[in-house]
């Protein structure tokens, strides 16, 4: 956060950008702070987000896809859907824009030490879960956790993000990495079927475990009963919400779910917390 004003973005440069999908709707950005002091002060946790700011267009809240273990550069994957995200897609490497954050609570990974971790991701909601996975699998952290399972699905192979990293995870013995697409297609060498189905076959034990879940509403709707049938408690399931935001610091009043602000109290809530809030998200 900028000490001068919480509304003031820190200047950054686009270091690299690639379109992730053939329809060019998703683009992944490498981002470097112009001022090394800003880079040092930007201390974030997996699951947090930032407001990406393009002068003249505005800001959009985007989950941080990189892990702090990866160095000072940040990674964001942005879906082109509105004014700001279109402006972000139009940036070229070397261009300046702004980052305001880190914002939100993030996944409580420090509190989950000693547990088995099941990560469930769908579509491009995988972004902050990529961050969590990279952090968990970092040599400094891996030994502090039990079994780590990564379930990730998308409609088709070209919609799966971060193939470079999860292909590496598949080679590792200390992570169970299951990647799936909705329908079989030529050349596909991993699983076929919806995420809830894969999860059901996997049948992760709730014993001393926690699940981090982020994905489209349909995936969430059908995955939660699978956890429930396996005996998981609502306190063990961590979900990340998104809502329209402006300030990102709990002042502007629009992203609330009941008395909680997604920007400040969230975006990560346990299912137990969400069960006590009005179903308005």
């Amino acid at each position, binding site marked *: 956060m900028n000490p001068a004003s919480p509304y*003031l973005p820190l200047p950054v440069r686009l270091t690299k950008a690639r379109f992730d999908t053939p329809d060019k709707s998703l683009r992944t950005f490498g981002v470097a702070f112009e001022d090394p002091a800003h880079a040092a002060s930007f201390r974030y946790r997996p699951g947090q987000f930032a407001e990406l700011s393009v002068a003249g267009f505005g800001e959009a809240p985007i989950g941080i896809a990189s892990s702090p273990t990866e160095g000072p550069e940040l990674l964001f994957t942005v879906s082109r859907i509105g004014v700001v995200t279109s402006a972000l897609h139009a940036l070229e490497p070397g261009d300046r824009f702004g980052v305001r954050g880190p914002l939100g609570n993030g996944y409580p990974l420090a509190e989950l030490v000693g547990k088995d971790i099941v990560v469930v991701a769908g579509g491009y909601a995988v972004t902050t879960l990529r961050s969590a996975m990279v952090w968990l699998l970092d040599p400094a952290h891996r030994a502090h956790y039990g079994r780590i399972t990564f379930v990730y699905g998308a409609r088709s192979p070209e919609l799966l993000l971060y193939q470079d990293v999860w292909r590496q995870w598949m080679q590792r013995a200390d992570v169970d990495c299951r990647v799936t697409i909705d329908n079989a297609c030529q050349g596909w060498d991993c699983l076929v079927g919806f995420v809830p189905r894969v999860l059901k076959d996997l049948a992760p034990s709730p014993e001393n475990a926690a699940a981090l879940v982020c994905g489209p509403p349909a995936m969430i709707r059908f995955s939660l009963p699978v956890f429930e049938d396996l005996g998981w408690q609502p306190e063990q399931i961590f979900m990340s919400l998104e809502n329209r935001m402006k300030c990102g610091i709990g002042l502007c009043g629009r992203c609330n779910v009941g008395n*909680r602000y997604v920007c400040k109290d969230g975006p990560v809530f346990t299912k137990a917390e969400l069960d006590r809030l009005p179903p308005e998200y």
Partner: protein
Amino acid sequence: MNDAMIFSRLDLPRIIAAWSATRAVYVPAVSGALTAFTLFDPERGLSLDYGNSTLSPKPFFFPQTECLLRFSTRGEDAGLAVAEPQGTQKRVIFGIRPCDAGAFSLLDRVFCQDKGSTDPSWASRRARTALVGIGCNAPDAACFCTSMGGGPHHARGLDILATDLGDEVLLTPITDKGRALMAEIPAVAAATPARGARGGTALGRAEMLRINAEAVMARSPFSGLTLEAVARRSQRTVHALGIWAKIAETCLNCGACTFTCPTCHCFDIQDETKGPSGRRVRNWDTCMSWLFTAHASGHTPRPTKVERVRQRFLHKFKYMPMNLDGRPGCVGCGRCVRQCPVNIDIREVLRAMDVACRAAPPSGASRDEAVS
């Protein structure tokens, strides 16, 4: 001057003129059906004959539109944002009503939550502004501050409480800022300490005025409204009450209520550019608008006016009390009651919430505590 002092009413313009030497002093001015705070003008004098300002005085701390930062769109510095400097002008708002002062003390807890969530312009404006309030001797029919933890002569949020005794005015300092302001009052003003026989009489008159004003409010058909039953039910229970569709039925989602409300503080942030320069501005927003929560994808968590109307009342009567030690997010100023074009009366809404909460099955009650 640490003590309450009595002044002749005729001294007030002189007192305000003294404060004006180093500060901008705003006073109520009545113009036809409208009352607004304007910069004190010795030529125009001072009128204490007003109910309350038509619109809330919240723009003194939270302007309807405000520049947050500036940037250029071309050249080497393109996209480099610079925070808009805070003003330095010291100010006094004279004649603010206790309900509005209470609203600002409530909003202090919204705009200055902690280190990461402090709005610099709110904090700056609050720090350099003193509030001299006047107790209400004749509350309006739409007023209900006594049901919201306030009162017509309450001092919460004020630096000085003034009591209009007719020919005289009693000034009671509340805070250090208020005491400093009292100390600046020129000796020419014929002040009498509110002690001794004559002072005691004045204090007695002030007390009578307060009791009288509260008695007037107690006679209102809406007196005795309470949030107790709402507080006892979980937010999920209050959210699911069957009353909301009927309450929202006549609402136009015009936003007059949020516009005039002293505690409504939701805002939008937008960029504006003109040629090579641009700025990021913060504007008042309203939860009555569909756009308020609409995602870029088109999805919105509050798609119809029923959800939006419910949000406004739950924010004030359930969510804010949960987050702010039981303080309601409403001060009972009555402006939304006066301004609503379809006569939605927040007091009737509160009563409906209370009745429905009393009737609601106890299941789910008191589970809120576990949330935070």
